């Protein structure tokens, strides 16, 4: 049973974080390098952080980077730990973690559908939620949804009472 301060000291001693801080009660965030992420997750999984809630992706268009966030939870410490890393927006490639948690293969397929990020080692990257989509991946910040709707669908014309 660790509280947030002991957890922060523990991670600073065992891993090599770029940034780590406590956001509020029960919520800690830590940022790691690209090359150390998979080994860091493997270590945390063995220290009782074995529940992977989901994987999210945030598009920071001014910094020209994508940020991948892995949300972990421990039933002993009762702390939500978010592990982040940043990848380049032009190349947008990363490694898969499906050898640690098999369920991550579907979360990565979802991120590929909406952001266009490729994951090496995960060979099932078919379209999961969209169908026959040929434009930019829709959750990127340079896809403007209102212009797309104006161009593709028409609006109903209302005539007042005569």
């Amino acid at each position, binding site marked *: 049973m660790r509280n947030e301060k002991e957890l922060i000291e523990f991670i600073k001693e065992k891993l090599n974080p770029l940034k780590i801080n406590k*956001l509020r009660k029960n919520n800690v965030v830590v940022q790691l390098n690209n090359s150390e992420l998979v080994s860091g997750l493997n270590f945390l999984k063995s220290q009782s952080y074995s*529940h992977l*809630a*989901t994987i999210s992706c945030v598009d920071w268009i001014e910094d020209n980077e994508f940020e991948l*966030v892995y*949300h972990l939870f421990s039933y002993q410490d009762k702390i939500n730990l978010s592990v982040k890393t940043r990848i380049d927006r032009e190349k947008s490639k990363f490694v898969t973690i499906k050898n640690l*948690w*098999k369920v991550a293969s579907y979360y990565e397929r979802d991120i590929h559908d909406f952001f266009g990020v490729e994951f090496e080692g995960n060979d099932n990257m078919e379209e999961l939620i969209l*169908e026959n989509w040929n434009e930019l991946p829709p959750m990127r910040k340079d896809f403007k*949804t209102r212009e797309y709707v104006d161009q593709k669908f028409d609006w109903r014309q209302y005539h007042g009472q005569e």
Partner: protein
Amino acid sequence: MDKSKMTEMFFGPNHPGVPGNYGINYYYEGDTVIEAEPNAGHLHRGFEKLMEEREWIKNTPLVCRICVMEPDINEMVYAMGYEAIGEIEVPERAKYIRSIILELARIQAHIFSIGGNCGAIGLYTAMQWGVLARDYILDIFEEITGGRVYHIYIRPGGVRHDIKDETFKKILDLLDDLENNRLPDVQKLIFENPTAQKRWKDTAILNQEDALRLGVTGPSLRATGLDHDVRKLMPYGAYDKVDFDVPVGHNSDAWTRMKLKRDEIFQSIKIIRQLINNIPDGPVTVDLGNALKYKIPKGEAYVKVESARGEYGYYMVSDGGLKPYRVHVRGTSTPLGLYGVEALLPGTRIEDVPVWAHSLGICPPEFDR
């Protein structure tokens, strides 16, 4: 795998036995499923993109439409995320009212789910009773908030308006009626019925190791023997001021999950009675200024609550502007509806596939968003 002897079946979107607009494509041989994969995405509306285009207050009527069986839980998580980043403290009376609304929503979701499970095996009388009992609870919601299904009552800062004393008396009368008249009838019809027991025992088994590996939460995990509940692990609202138990089962088949849902209804009735008898006076909302110009500083948060089916989480990022920068929705049945079909369904009989889908609580709009 030699597929020349297997038949392909589309347990597809247009089927009375599937819980929503969702499909499973599977190969079977004889009577057993060999390989399966999900066919999701029919209900996709692009919520996360729509939330980035609207101001903070305009997302409140949009968020409750993500999960249609239990819409109040989404409003609660959105408000909790906003208050966590902005460090806003909600008054005491508002916390009690929010917990009463959430427990009423949990009761009606469990009654509807028990009715739906019975419809999947052919016991249609129980389905009619379940939908009718849920309708009386929707009448109470209509008196408090104005709408039967979508309430838009919980919002950042508190709730929209106060509840009168006559409505509290009506809630207590309805709970007495449920506990003394309707639930004992349901007990005799479903839970002491040998045909239903034979159909549900030893079907749709989910053992503890698989559940922890996939990230399953809620009654499906508590049926395997662990008593994890977000209301006890990380209390929110007024749950740290009431006294209740968390029911746990040991067999992890469909029969145990049905009994757990019935036990949770009784625990929720106990919670609501304690909350109504001890509710303090005071204001019900914090004044946050002009609603169209809500603003919170830069930051991020991951918040979660316990819905009727399990853990529901939002990841919210704000960059200090008038609109959210990123909101990511993690539904309860995301691991089971997507990966669980590929890993857990092979080996079941084909007439048990609707029972599997209904009893594990798969709700397609949560992962389609």
